[in-house]
């Protein structure tokens, strides 16, 4: 099967048979075309999801620092949950699945040694984020995608200071609940991704993350009824 885009066959006489043999082995031969309804939904979803992002590209330079700090804070949520899980299992190596995103992994809510900076509540975790997904790793906010996240939380930014952001969760849809989340320092690699979210002190957010990566571009965003519905569908209470 060839795609609708496929060009008219290029003359390549001696090896047309080879091309045909490869085509006959096409694993996508059974992929059905997208219906016009699904296509329209994709168009709408893409443009709608990005509208917020586009608006944030305008005149938000002054907040870029906050932007990535708070998005990184969501990463901490993951590690916090994982950290607790690790302690519960008594296996420090079990956190390896998140190690790509979190370095200097500290403790968890139950770990009194977790805090190596300012005094923190018992359920605070501090992490350093290294790396991050490049631009383009954005997923649209569908409940199916949200349902795959390790952490999904309704949280409000309570404080932002130099190099540190604090969020107060009001509801964990999934993941280990902690009292608060604090993040210090993130890598510049995140800048591109974090353009997608505009966090402001005092504002309420829905944040999701998986395997050490915050899911942005609409999945983690300022609280809205529509996004809340997506989360609710993903994790019905």
């Amino acid at each position, binding site marked *: 099967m060839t795609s609708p885009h496929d060009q008219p066959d*290029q003359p390549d006489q001696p090896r047309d048979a080879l091309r045909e043999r*490869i085509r006959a082995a096409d*694993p996508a031969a059974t*992929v059905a075309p997208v219906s016009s309804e699904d296509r329209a939904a994709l*168009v709408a979803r*893409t*443009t709608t999801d990005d509208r917020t992002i586009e608006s944030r590209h305008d005149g938000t330079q002054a907040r870029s620092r906050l932007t990535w700090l708070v998005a990184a804070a969501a990463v901490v949520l993951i590690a916090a949950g994982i950290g607790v899980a690790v302690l519960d299992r008594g296996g420090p190596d079990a956190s390896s699945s998140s190690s790509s995103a979190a370095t200097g992994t500290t403790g968890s809510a139950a770990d009194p040694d977790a805090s190596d900076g300012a005094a923190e509540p018992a359920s605070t975790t501090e992490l350093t984020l290294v790396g991050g997904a490049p631009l383009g790793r954005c997923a649209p906010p569908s409940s199916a995608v949200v349902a795959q996240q390790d952490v999904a939380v309704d949280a409000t930014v309570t404080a932002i200071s130099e190099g540190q952001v604090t969020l107060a969760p009001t509801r964990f849809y999934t993941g280990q609940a902690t009292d608060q989340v604090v993040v210090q320092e993130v890598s510049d690699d995140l800048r591109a991704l974090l353009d997608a979210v505009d966090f402001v002190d005092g504002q309420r957010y829905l944040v999701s993350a998986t395997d050490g990566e915050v899911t942005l571009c609409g999945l983690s965003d300022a609280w809205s009824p529509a996004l809340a519905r997506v989360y609710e569908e993903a994790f019905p209470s």
Partner: protein
Amino acid sequence: MSSQARQERFALIVEQVVDPCRRYLARRTDVATADDVLSDVLLVCWRRIDEVPDDAVPWAYGVARRALANADRAGRRQRRVAAKLAVLQPEGRATTDADPQAVVEGADVRQALAALPERDAELLRLWAWEDLAPAQIALVLGISVNATSLRLRRAKDKLADEITLRARQTGRGAGHEQSTTPPGRSRP
């Protein structure tokens, strides 16, 4: 470009690229990652709509290629094999009536492709599965047309040799050797 014009152009681009990109991804990754990457590709098309050429599909393949590489690097492919997305799952058509010999042969060809260096295999996939001309393959891979043509020629030879070798080893497909092996080429 006005907002309205932008939307309209994007709709046309989606119409042009979505099915080819879905097939492109279905050939290279699992369903969940394919859906994920497709969303990324469309988002990039939307954000960079002024840069999308009229012949948008090879351009979109290039975006998909990079996005897929990123996804693979992040290990998402492995982690999401079992994941399900509600939208845009490939709907397999009935395959129970497929010719068993064709099925075996298809598997042989895919194995032969997989045995090649990835660079060669990808060239051949783009050539045969995406049905691209060398100039379009060059665009996707970000290399020159001349280099593409040269590499493609070599890749075809390698695949023909690999298929021939496998046919000899398995005792299958001897009848295809003549059609796929360039004259004068043989492999011990």
